[in-house]
């Protein structure tokens, strides 16, 4: 297929040279001296009622041009439920919550004026943990939860349960009642993970021609547009969002947060206003990967058939529902993935607490659900005496198997990937000798993720110089999609070189709807929309050339910047000549395209409260880790790490390998030392690089990776997203390897040296969940 051979290549990044020279202007490099600086007054208590908020003295401070409070932006926003004010209105729900904002000529003046705001807060008893929040008499974090607008219908809600999603397939009670089965039950708990993109959340707002213009470091320009409209009670079309290069996102920038504040202040002052989180603010209010608690039970026959499975997953959404409401859906596809199961029922609940809100983070709840599922699988193997690798080979999802919501999987993918892992291990060898007297463990784990496809639009303009301009709302956050895979795809479709494809940076005024960079969807969705746009361009181009060459369009091909007669290289004419003719006769050549999911069906009645019922594009991984545990210090060294990743079709193998190395290392941080804890007054304790331990060069090793191609995908040219999943099974592989090394169950991440020592000496209390009822149904809202 020539179009494929013209598309697949190790194209280097076009943005690398400017980034290396320090010339790239990220949003926070665009601050100019004539801009106003905004700073936030943030709550210093985790819960309270605002009794008095008087900003009049602050307005009189030197340099201050505007002060805004919740009264200036009364609309509420959210993903499933509109529960979130831009600035606290009456009630404070977390330590660090924005209450008021000051815009002044300089940041120093704005900070000085903060002291002039009169704020009186009546403290309320905070609800810090999900255990507290689920007590029958718990104080409600949102007293008015019943009155909130429900943006997406279908989820059950009550009190501190912001959202509940369930999946149920088959007769689970009958499976657990079988006389021939053994029941294995496991409990797991995980903490939060902070994204730490190098560029913090930052926005620059202006007010132009009666409309807001926000330049911001975001993954979701259309969400920022819509949320700004909501909170300012404007039609969203009166908001324009443009996105400069983004200095890292990892999911943190998948929701709106501070951006609308700049539009509000710009409207009040008529000036351009910048708001940038300090590193301390950024980490203290990070929309972290949520802490979670998981109980899972399986009924397994002596032959190793998983007859039944049930699980309860509690996800801490913090003070506002946010992304966690949506993420409850994912449990069915992550904890409910990987294996053939006879009957299954799962419930996941997003629970409100008086803690900073959580959000999306690369492979979201899949990272801990995969840890839980794979450790549980090893506990099944331990209890019933199965070999963990053989058990996995016997039970991984294959062609025709059913997922948790009754979706039918196509093709055998995980099984052959396990074989490929064994081949990879044979080629690299193992590293047991490097353990050098320490406790050695090796574990192979599997993971299931999916591309959330969602709507995308693309426009392609063919220019008179033979170049093409691609206009989309896609954002380059570092993954390379906008500078590698999309120009490769468009060039392949139009017979151009990738450097002839100009990629417009995201602008909601220029491009159609896109749901944003997340879940590994950009190459798939914007790629497919781009191919649809190219089809229209090709059709116009070939029709015009056909007239000029007196040849039928179906006998023409696009190759090397020319329209050629099939089978006659060098014949025909150059694309610029055809474009020039078209411009003079029928008009400029443009094409537009759109794409969204076909909605892969679930089995009727299997999914409740789900935002999506089935996986449009499943993505699988196999991860293998070798570790050495120092029994004296509890330190875990990763000796070797291997990945087999289902990529569908690798458009740029070298770029994908770069994503795998980076994603695995982010997962190693999560598994081993990135720990977020809350102080007694509800603050995130780790708010700088001294207290939050990120992976450094000396902590990491090269990941050996094998790209598995050919699994079915509706993505263009058979692609799947490749940047999201490398982190998916790292907690699982490390957790299982450490458990085998130390011979003790691992039920919690991260595996910091003190925790590993406590596990070794059996001083680590196992997780206990008195707030999870023994009977599964008692953990649901019915």
């Amino acid at each position, binding site marked *: 297929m020539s179009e494929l051979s013209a598309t697949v290549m190790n194209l280097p990044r076009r943005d690398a040279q400017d980034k*290396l020279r320090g*010339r*790239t202007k990220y949003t926070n*490099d665009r601050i100019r001296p004539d801009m106003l600086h905004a700073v936030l007054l943030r709550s210093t208590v985790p819960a309270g009622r605002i009794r008095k908020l008087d900003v009049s003295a602050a307005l009189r401070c030197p340099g201050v041009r505007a002060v805004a409070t919740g009264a200036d932006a009364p609309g509420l926003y959210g993903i499933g439920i509109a529960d979130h004010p831009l600035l606290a209105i009456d009630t404070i729900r977390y330590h660090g919550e924005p209450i008021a904002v000051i815009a002044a000529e300089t940041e120093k003046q704005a900070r000085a004026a903060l002291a002039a705001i009169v704020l009186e807060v009546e403290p309320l008893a905070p609800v810090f943990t999900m255990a507290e929040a689920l007590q029958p008499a718990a104080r409600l974090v949102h007293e008015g939860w019943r009155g909130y607008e429900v943006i997406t219908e279908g989820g059950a809600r009550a009190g501190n349960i912001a959202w509940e999603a369930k999946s149920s397939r088959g007769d689970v009670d009958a499976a657990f009642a079988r006389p021939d089965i053994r029941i294995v039950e496991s409990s797991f708990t995980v903490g939060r993970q902070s994204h730490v993109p*190098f560029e913090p959340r930052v926005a620059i707002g202006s007010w132009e021609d009666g409309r807001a213009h926000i330049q911001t470091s975001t993954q979701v320009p259309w969400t920022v547009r819509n949320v700004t409209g909501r909170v300012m009670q404007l039609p969203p079309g009166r908001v324009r969002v443009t996105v400069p290069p983004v200095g890292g996102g990892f999911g943190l920038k998948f929701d709106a947060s501070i951006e609308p504040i700049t539009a509000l202040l710009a409207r009040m002052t008529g000036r351009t206003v910048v708001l940038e989180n300090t590193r301390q603010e950024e980490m203290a209010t990070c929309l972290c990967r949520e802490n979670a608690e998981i109980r899972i039970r399986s009924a397994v026959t002596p032959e190793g058939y998983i007859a039944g499975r049930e699980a309860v997953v509690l996800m801490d959404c913090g003070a506002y529902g946010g992304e966690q409401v949506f993420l409850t859906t994912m449990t069915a596809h992550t904890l409910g993935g990987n294996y053939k199961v006879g009957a299954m029922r799962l419930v996941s609940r997003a629970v409100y607490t008086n803690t900073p809100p959580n959000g999306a983070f690369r492979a979201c709840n899949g990272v801990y659900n995969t840890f839980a599922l794979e450790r549980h699988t090893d506990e099944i193997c331990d209890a019933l005496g199965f070999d963990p690798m053989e058990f996995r080979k016997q039970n991984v999802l294959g062609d025709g198997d059913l997922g948790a919501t009754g979706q039918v999987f196509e093709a055998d993918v995980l099984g052959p990937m396990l074989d490929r892992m064994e081949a990879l291990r044979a080629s690299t060898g193992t590293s047991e000798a490097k353990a050098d007297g320490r406790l050695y463990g090796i574990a192979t784990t599997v993971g299931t993720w999916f591309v959330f496809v969602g709507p995308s639009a693309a426009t392609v303009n063919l220019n008179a110089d033979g170049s093409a301009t691609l206009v989309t709302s896609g954002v380059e956050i570092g993954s390379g999609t906008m500078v590698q895979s999309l120009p490769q795809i468009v060039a392949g479709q139009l017979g151009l070189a990738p450097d002839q494809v100009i990629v417009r940076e995201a602008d909601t005024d220029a491009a159609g709807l896109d749901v944003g960079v997340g879940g590994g969807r950009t190459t798939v969705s914007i790629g497919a929309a781009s191919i649809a746009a190219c089809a229209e361009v090709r059709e116009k181009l070939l029709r015009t050339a056909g007239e000029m060459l007196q040849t039928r369009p179906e006998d023409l091909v696009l190759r090397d910047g020319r329209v050629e007669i099939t089978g006659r290289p060098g014949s025909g004419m150059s694309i610029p000549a055809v474009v020039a003719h078209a411009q003079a006769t029928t008009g400029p050549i443009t094409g537009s395209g759109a794409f969204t999911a076909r909605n892969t069906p679930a089995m009727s009645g299997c999914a409740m409260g789900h935002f999506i019922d089935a996986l449009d594009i499943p993505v699988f991984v196999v991860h293998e880790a070798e570790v050495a545990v120092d029994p004296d210090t509890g330190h875990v060294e990763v000796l070797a790490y291997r990945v087999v990743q289902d990529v569908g079709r690798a458009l740029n193998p070298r770029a994908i390998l770069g994503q795998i190395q980076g994603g695995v*290392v982010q997962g190693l941080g999560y598994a081993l030392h990135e720990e977020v804890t809350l102080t007694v007054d509800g603050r995130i304790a780790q708010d700088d*690089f001294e207290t939050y331990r990120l992976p450094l060069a000396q902590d990491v090793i090269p990941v050996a990776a094998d790209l598995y191609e050919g699994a079915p995908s509706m993505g263009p040219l058979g692609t799947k997203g490749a940047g999201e999943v490398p982190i998916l099974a790292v907690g699982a592989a490390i957790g299982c390897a450490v458990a085998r090394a130390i011979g003790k169950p691992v039920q919690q991440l991260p595996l910091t040296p003190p925790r590993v020592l406590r596990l070794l000496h059996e001083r680590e209390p196992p997780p206990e969940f008195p707030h999870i009822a023994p009977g599964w149904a008692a953990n649901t809202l019915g």
Partner: protein
Amino acid sequence: MTVTFQLNGEDCRFHGDPMTPLVDILRQERFLTGTKAVCREGFCGACTVHVDDEAVPSCLKPIALVQGCAVTTIEGLSSGNHPLHPLQAAFEAADAVQCGMCFPGMVMSLSAFVRDNPHASRPEIKAAMVGNICRCTGYERIVDTVADCLDQARKAGQLVGGVHV
């Protein structure tokens, strides 16, 4: 207080608080935004510049302490349309960059390191990166690229970036 120093080869004068961090002068007064202020506590290395040819985090450098010094920022390492420093060219060719925010500091730290340590081993390169955090790449491709650069320079009998500014 008045401080005079050389900035990317030109005379530069600053009037103001002598405790002002160098990074703020670079970014806010000179608009040299290639120097990134990420943690402002000396941990991440994204604001690394050369002061008298030594790589230092500019967030921890009060402006008074650069009196009489020569400061080189990433913009001064290879200015205008001049060829990239060999390390920059190698990082570009290897597709090492992702979000890119750590790279100006990474280049400033490692360009001083390879100049002073032409025989550095892979573990020594990693040790030299202890003050430069990258959240995207997982480091190994950066380390490989530096090792390759040193290897090639040794074979050619040259220093990496021998034309160092």
